[in-house]
C-alpha cells in the first residue's frame, strides 16, 4: 500500500506542478464572470443559465484534466525512460498501474473540489443558498465518473502507443457516451436486426457516465436530493467499471516488454 501511495503521490505532484489545471480553472472562472456580466432585462438575480454554463465547463475541464494527465503517465515514463529505474525497484507492475490510477483519480478529485467550490460560490452569490448535500451528491458521482475515465485512459495508454491518439479516442468515446448513452437503446429499437443487436450490446456494455452527467440538471434547477441509495448504487456501478478497466490494464501490462 505504501508503494501504491508513493506512486500516486508523484502523479498528484505532477498535476499541480504542471500548469494545465490552473489554466483551465482560470479560463472557467473568467468565462463565467464574463457571462455573468451580461445584462438580462436589468435583473441581477438570474443565475441558472450561469450555473448550467459553469457546470458544463467544469465537466469539460475535468475531463480534459483526467484524460490528458492519465494518457501521458505511462507513455511519458517510457519516453523519458523513467520507467526502467522505477520497475527495477521491488514493485510489481500491478502496483504501478493501481498507483498511477489512484494518483490521477485523487488529482482529479482535488481539481474537482476547487471547481465545485468556485461553482458553489458562483451560485451563492445570487441565490444566497448553499445546498451542500446536493453539490456533494453531484460532485461525488462526477468523481466516480472521472475514475472510470481515468481507468479507461490508463488502459488506452497501454494499448495505443501514442498518447495523443489515446487521448483523442478516449475523448470521442466519453463524449459519445455522455451525449448518446442514454438513448442508445431507443436508437437500437429503430434499427433492423443485425444492427439492433449490436447497438443493444454496446448499450449494455458501456459505462453509463451520462447518469452523473445528467445530474447537472438537478443542481441547476434546484431539484431535491436524489435518494442516497441510488447514489450508492451508481457509485458501485461505476466502481465495477473502474475495476474492470484496471484489471484489463494490468493484464495488458503484465507481460509487456518495457525496453
Amino acid at each position, binding site marked *: 500500500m505504501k508503494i501504491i501511495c508513493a506512486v500516486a503521490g*508523484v502523479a498528484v*505532484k*505532477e498535476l499541480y506542478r504542471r500548469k494545465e489545471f490552473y489554466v483551465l480553472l482560470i479560463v472557467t472562472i473568467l468565462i463565467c464572470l464574463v457571462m455573468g456580466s451580461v445584462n438580462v432585462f436589468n435583473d441581477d438575480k438570474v443565475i441558472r443559465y450561469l450555473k448550467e454554463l459553469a457546470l458544463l465547463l467544469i465537466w469539460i475541464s475535468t475531463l480534459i484534466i483526467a484524460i490528458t494527465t492519465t494518457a501521458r503517465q505511462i507513455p511519458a515514463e517510457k519516453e*523519458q*525512460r523513467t520507467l*526502467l*529505474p*522505477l520497475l*527495477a*525497484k521491488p514493485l510489481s507492475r500491478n502496483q504501478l498501474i493501481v498507483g498511477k490510477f489512484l494518483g490521477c483519480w485523487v488529482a482529479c478529485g482535488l481539481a474537482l473540489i476547487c471547481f465545485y467550490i468556485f461553482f458553489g460560490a458562483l451560485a451563492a452569490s445570487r441565490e444566497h443558498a448553499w445546498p451542500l448535500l446536493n453539490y456533494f451528491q453531484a460532485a461525488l458521482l462526477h468523481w466516480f465518473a472521472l475514475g472510470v475515465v481515468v481507468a479507461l485512459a490508463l488502459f488506452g495508454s497501454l494499448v495505443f502507443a501514442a498518447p495523443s491518439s489515446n487521448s483523442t479516442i478516449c475523448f470521442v468515446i466519453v463524449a459519445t457516451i455522455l451525449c448518446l448513452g442514454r438513448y442508445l437503446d431507443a436508437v437500437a429499437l429503430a434499427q433492423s436486426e443485425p444492427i439492433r443487436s449490436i447497438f443493444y450490446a454496446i448499450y449494455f456494455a458501456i459505462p453509463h457516465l451520462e447518469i452523473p452527467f445528467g445530474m447537472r440538471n438537478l443542481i441547476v434547477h434546484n431539484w431535491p436530493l436524489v435518494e442516497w441509495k441510488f447514489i450508492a448504487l451508481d457509485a458501485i456501478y461505476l466502481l465495477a467499471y473502474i475495476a474492470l478497466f484496471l484489471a484489463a490494464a494490468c493484464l495488458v501490462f503484465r507481460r509487456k516488454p518495457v525496453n
Partner: protein
Amino acid sequence: MNTILKTEKLRVEFKTRQLGKATTKVALNGLDLAVQAGEVFGFLGPNGAGKTTTMNVLLGFIQPTGGAAYLFGIDVRQPIARQRIGYLPELTYYYKFLNAEEILRFYAKIFKIPNAEAEKRIDFVLKLVELQHARKRLIKTYSKGMQQRVGLAQALINNPDLLILDEPTSGLDPVGRMKVRSIIQRLKNEGRTVFFSSHEMGEVETICDRIAIINNGELKAVGSVSEISSQHGANLEKAFLDIIGFQPEAVA
C-alpha cells in the same frame, strides 16, 4: 562463496518486422552466468552483443523466451528479487517536475525505508555523488553529468547488496569517470557485489575481479582479467578483439 546473480541457458528472441517480413532476432542464446558475492564483475561485449538485454531480463523488464534468471536465489519474475539491488540504466532521465531530493524520497518509499532512515540515506547518497548543492533544484535544470549522478544516487538509495550498472561511465568527462570508478571501488571495499557493463578496457582492467565476454548473445569467455589476457598472450584489449573474432588485417 554464494552465487548472487545467476542465469541458466538464458534465451531471448525478438520478433521484428523487416520490410513487412516477420523475422526473429536471437539476442541471447543459452547464456550461463554466475556472479559471486563480493566481486566486481565486468560484462563485456561489442555493440549489440546482448549486454543490455541480459540486464533487462535480470530486472524483469522483458520475459526470456527460454531459460531462467535468479537474483539472490529468487526468480527475477518476483518483485521481491529486486529488493536488495540497485540499478543504473544505460540512458535515463528522471521526472522533470521533481527535484533530486523528491525523487530519492519517492524511490525510498518504494523500498519501504522508514522516513527517518530515508532522510539519512538521501543525505548520504547526495553527498556521495556530490549533488548536495543542487538537491532542491528541478531535474530539468540539470546537466547530463548531473543527471547521471542522480541515477547513481537512486541506485544506491536502498543500500543495495548488488549493483547492476549499464555503462555507468558513458558520456562522462574524465573527472566524472574517475569519481564513478572510485565509488565502485568503495562499494567493493564495503563487500558489495557490482555487475556492470562497459566498453572501457582500461577501466575494466583496473577495477574488475572477473569478467565475462559475450558476442552475438553467446558467452565467449569468463574468468579473471589476468587469466583471460594471459590465455591470449597480450593485454585485455587484444584478448577482447581476439575472442570476438575481429581481424585487424581485414580492416587494413
